[in-house]
């Protein structure tokens, strides 16, 4: 029998990228199944609602599940589908939360120093429901703009907020809009750059997956400000969930009349097309992106002319990053003064970072500009895994640089990071510890940029290849005297002579690692040693005589038959046969295998 006035319990499950990967969908299904199983036997005194939400940030503890019972909301961490039954029994039915599964101090510490503007709604509203966004004030920004402000007011508001492009270069957004507005032309375009391609970065993806309407609203406001009625979202095809939710959000906005003609009864009309990228990193560069939308090969062209003057189909075009656009509605709603009060003198507001690598609490974080790297890594990130020694943090992805431990106290803003040879970039932040070889890290990023070079200009196409070759030979123990100087010379020439941002920044990982970790390069080249013990060709494995018990574990683990020795007697590794796989090192319980 159906009871009336049942209380409503909400089970909120993270289905951001991290959540889905950790099994968010299965967790929801498990909850649904457990509840419906119990419906048969007992009369439940509540109705259960399931809410899928975007990224909560703390991906290391996924799947995160909120149980909202009236005003009380409790969060569980690391939930697996099989844990649903106990939560349903004890918490939902029994009324006693499962204490040991609830979030702990780390979770609070992870959030303590963050300032969530964009990610606040991201983790609490259902991205597939336009009403959820409207309930938290969504689309009030565009309403306000259309009813109270003229385009110039909007631009000066954005200028006053101090918002700068979050794609990496940090160009003032309001200024970009103003130039585009002043460029004569009947047709203008707004492009949202969602071609996020940096390895380890998932900020834009999470925003679109978690709160797609904020991006749409941001684009609409941008369109009104510059005088454009057409927007494009250029998004990676590798982000199927983001594409799906974005398309859904656009169609919902259409149904409401939020997109289309005469929005909110005004003369303003705006429409958005979604254009999928075909997997080219270089298409994140604005001119290559435009070429790609036009159906050309994604190749950058020389600037000037800049897109604000001569953009898509030759028309004035504003290209903004997802995060930049997503900031717009919040600035309009809360005012420029509020936004400008956050951050440093030249870098305002918050920045979303994808904190990854050797840090304990990996995830998506939003911090006020000006926070120090130390706070991010130790307070939010909880320090290094295994309490090993921190070595460097790589910011800005393949275009950025590595920042060493002695610079951990610099504030995170556009100027400070540029000063130490890195960039804010789109927001990738990879933490490296003592087990990371800096030469190898530089090689990794060069491998990426070389493979993603469009091939148009010589310094990028051939220059990065040569950089990679030199780094490759250094990690293989074939480095020569003078290689460091050659790397530096070639790097600076590539930076100066390349056509687009890809080539101009590609040598940054090389230059910054040489700048701060020159001794590691020298150890590779002169002593043929890898201090971090990463570069396989430079390692030798040997048995430490006093520890070896002759157990034979290493002998059995060795795939190449390089280890000999009788039982209970000293074993030996033949370096000529050893393939340096490290299997013996891993398997030895007595730490009798040495590695140098």
């Amino acid at each position, binding site marked *: 029998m159906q009871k009336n006035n049942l209380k409503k319990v909400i089970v909120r499950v993270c289905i951001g990228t991290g959540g889905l990967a950790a099994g968010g969908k299965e967790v929801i299904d498990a909850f649904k199944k457990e509840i419906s199983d119990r419906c048969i036997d007992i009369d439940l005194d509540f109705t259960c609602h399931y809410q899928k939400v975007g990224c909560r940030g703390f991906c290391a503890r996924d799947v995160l599940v909120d149980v909202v019972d009236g005003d009380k909301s409790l969060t569980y961490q690391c939930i697996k589908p099989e844990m649903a039954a106990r939560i349903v029994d004890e918490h939902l039915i029994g009324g006693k939360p499962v204490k040991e599964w609830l979030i702990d101090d780390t979770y609070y510490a992870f959030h303590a120093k963050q300032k969530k503007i964009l990610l606040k709604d991201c983790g609490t509203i259902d991205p597939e429901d336009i009403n959820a966004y409207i309930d938290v004030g969504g689309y009030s920004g565009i309403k306000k703009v259309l009813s109270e402000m003229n385009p110039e007011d909007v631009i000066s508001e954005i200028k006053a907020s101090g918002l700068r492009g979050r794609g990496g270069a940090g160009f003032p957004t309001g200024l970009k809009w103003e130039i585009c507005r002043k460029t004569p032309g009947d047709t203008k375009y707004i492009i949202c750059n969602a071609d996020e391609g940096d390895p380890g970065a998932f900020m834009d993806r999470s925003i679109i997956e978690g709160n797609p309407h904020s991006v749409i609203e941001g684009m609409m406001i941008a369109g009104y400000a510059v005088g454009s009625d057409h927007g494009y979202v250029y998004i990676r095809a590798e982000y199927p969930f983001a594409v799906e939710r974005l398309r859904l959000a656009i169609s919902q906005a259409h149904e409401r009349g939020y997109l289309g003609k005469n929005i909110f009864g005004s003369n303003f009309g705006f429409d958005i097309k979604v254009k999928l990228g075909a997997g*080219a990193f*270089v298409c994140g560069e604005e001119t290559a992106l435009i070429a790609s939308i036009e159906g050309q*090969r994604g*190749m950058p*062209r*020389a600037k*000037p*002319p800049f897109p604000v003057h001569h953009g898509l189909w030759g028309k004035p075009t504003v290209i903004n990053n997802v995060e930049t656009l997503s900031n717009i509605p919040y600035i309009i709603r809360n005012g420029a003064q509020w936004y400008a009060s956050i951050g440093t003198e030249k870098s305002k507001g918050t920045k979303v970072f994808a904190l990854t690598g050797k840090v304990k609490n990996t995830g998506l974080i939003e911090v006020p500009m000006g926070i120090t790297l130390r706070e991010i890594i130790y307070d939010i990130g909880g320090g290094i895994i295994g309490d090993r020694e921190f070595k460097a943090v790589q910011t800005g992805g393949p275009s950025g640089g590595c920042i060493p431990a002695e610079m951990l106290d610099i504030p995170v803003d556009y100027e400070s990071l540029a000063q130490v040879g890195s960039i804010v970039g789109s927001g990738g932040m990879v933490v490296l510890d003592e087990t990371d070889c800096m030469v190898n890290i530089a090689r990794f990023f060069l491998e990426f940029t*070389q*493979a*993603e*070079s*469009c*091939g*148009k*200009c*010589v*310094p990028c*196409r*051939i*220059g*990065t*290849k*040569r950089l990679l*070759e030199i780094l490759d030979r250094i990690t293989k123990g074939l480095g020569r005297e003078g290689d460091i100087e*050659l790397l530096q*010379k*070639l790097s600076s*020439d590539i930076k*100066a*002579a*390349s*056509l687009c941002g890809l080539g*101009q920044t590609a040598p940054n990982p090389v230059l910054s690692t040489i700048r701060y970790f020159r001794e590691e390069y020298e150890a590779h080249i002169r002593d043929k040693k890898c201090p971090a013990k990463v570069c396989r060709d430079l390692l030798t494995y040997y048995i430490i005589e006093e520890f070896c018990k002759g157990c034979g574990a290493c002998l059995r683990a060795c795939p190449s038959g390089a280890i000999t020795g009788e039982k209970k007697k000293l074993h030996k590794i033949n370096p000529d046969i050893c393939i340096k796989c490290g299997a013996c090192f891993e398997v030895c319980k007595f730490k009798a295998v040495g590695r140098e």
Partner: protein
Amino acid sequence: MFKVTIDGKTIEVQEGTTVLDAAKMLDIPIPTLCHHPKLTPFGGCRLCIVEIKGIPRPVTSCTTPVSDGMEVTTSNPYIEDLRKTVLELILSDHPNDCMVCEKAGDCTLQELAYFYGIRENRFEGERRIYTKRDGNPFIERDLEKCIMCGRCVKVCDEVEGVGAIDFGYRGFSSKICTPFGKDLNCEFCGQCVAVCPTGALTGKMWKQKGRQKDIKEIETTCPYCGCGCSLTLHVRRNEVIKITSREDTLNEGWLCVKGRFSYSFINSPDRLTKPLIRIAPKDQSNPPLPPFVKGGRGGINNSLLVTRYSSLFREASWDEAVDYIAKRLKTLKDKYGPDAIAGLSSARCTNEENYLFQKFMRAGIGTNNIDHCARY
């Protein structure tokens, strides 16, 4: 008009002029590889970089439009050093087999390497290796020599409107590609060959026929159609070994497959060089051949036909031949009337020739029975 100062010299140029063009007007040399004056700017080779006051990084002069009051430096030790690095990088991925290259002596890359004195290469490393595989008789593509300047792609797209090739792949493996990497299958106009600054694209029939020495260049007009494109014949030992066209001609240096590659008829032994007059009546000259010869390959035996026909003609002088034609036409006209005669002309003749031909038929013979493969 914009006033621009390049290396201390000032010039007034129209809005939209590139720095490179302005420098050219001042006779200031800037090295280029990917630039072609008739194609849209590319900015890929990075050799034409210059420094402009107020712009923090060097920019390519081929893509940068001048602005009023711009101050440009085209050469200083820093810029020349960057250019040298770029050139070395290009050469580090180039076969450097100039000794046997068709393009040697006429190669922009070779020329630049000479002027920059590049002998040793700091950046030696892996080189791209490709096998040549195109089956066509006209265009030789040696992708190992390609410097990816993109001129071929642009000429094919912007001038020919064909788009038979484009950039493909990424990074070091990027190359100029046909659709799906298949054999080149286009109209073989060879415009790409004409604009290629290196030996990556050459004519197959040029191979080992001669480069610069003993070559005489002779200007002439293409005999293939009424367009009358200007040709430059490259003649060695009284044999045409290559045809090009200069950019300052009415056809701006552009040619089609016939004009560029179809010159083997000049020295062909089958070529008619003198008038021939048939010496036996027609019906006897062409006895019916069996449609199918048992045991043979079937059809007509061509070699047999050729011998038979040739044995039934005799060489004559032009005077004799023209007299003979006039006599025969007159006889036929007298006997059957002018409308028994019809004239077919050719699009390969010039306008003037075709005009004369119709005049001859209408006024001379007195018939309107004239036609032409492209119609009158």
